[in-house]
């Protein structure tokens, strides 16, 4: 049973460019959350998608947007990249009716470097 799959593993972009990161949730999970983790810090919540809609959003600017597809996979898009967007981007999947009793399953992340 595959866990959460993220692609690409690593990415280097130039300031001002746009980037799209992809995530396939664990089989059977219907909810996808995205987190940004700067070096040496804990993950910060970006947003969560359920039933193809953004259900909750963290304190991130509108440059960060996302999408969830009917097969529950998800994309994170970041426009007008800044140097400060360099981080590890983590996708986590879960079951909507299990959040009180079960933890999240995280992917291995996408390491984004903005130069």
């Amino acid at each position, binding site marked *: 049973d595959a866990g959460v799959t993220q692609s690409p593993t690593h990415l280097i972009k130039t300031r001002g460019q746009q980037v799209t990161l992809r995530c396939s949730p664990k089989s059977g999970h219907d909810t996808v959350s995205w987190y940004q983790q700067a070096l040496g810090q804990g993950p910060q919540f970006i947003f969560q998608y359920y039933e193809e809609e953004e259900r909750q959003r963290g304190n991130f600017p509108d440059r960060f947007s996302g999408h969830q597809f009917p097969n529950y996979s998800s994309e994170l898009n970041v426009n007008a990249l800044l140097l400060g967007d360099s981080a590890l981007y983590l996708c986590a999947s879960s079951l909507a009716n299990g959040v009180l009793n079960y933890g999240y399953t*995280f992917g291995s992340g996408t*390491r984004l470097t903005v130069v």
Partner: protein
Amino acid sequence: SQQGEEDPQALSIQEGENATMNCSYKTSINNLQWYRQNSGRGLVHLILIRSNEREKHSGRLRVTLDTSKKSSSLLITASRAADTASYFCAQRAKAAGNKLTFGGGTRVLVKP
């Protein structure tokens, strides 16, 4: 700023010793979770403790929760070199929907 804080920020122990790390948080929670992260890669879920539970065990892991003090601790007994990792606590706060709020983590080094 983050919801919780782990203490200590870093911990170095010998193989076979116990490792204890603490987590404090600020608001009422539905549950608190502990995760492990190796070398800046993905997080692995270790254990979840609900707000009405006080202690939980999983293998060599023991988690306690004190909601009156808004704190939790993770104990790893008989540590192994493979336990070397960063450990994060994450809260699912009652007023925060489904998001998890992470602390800054404790970096644990287990020396063989």
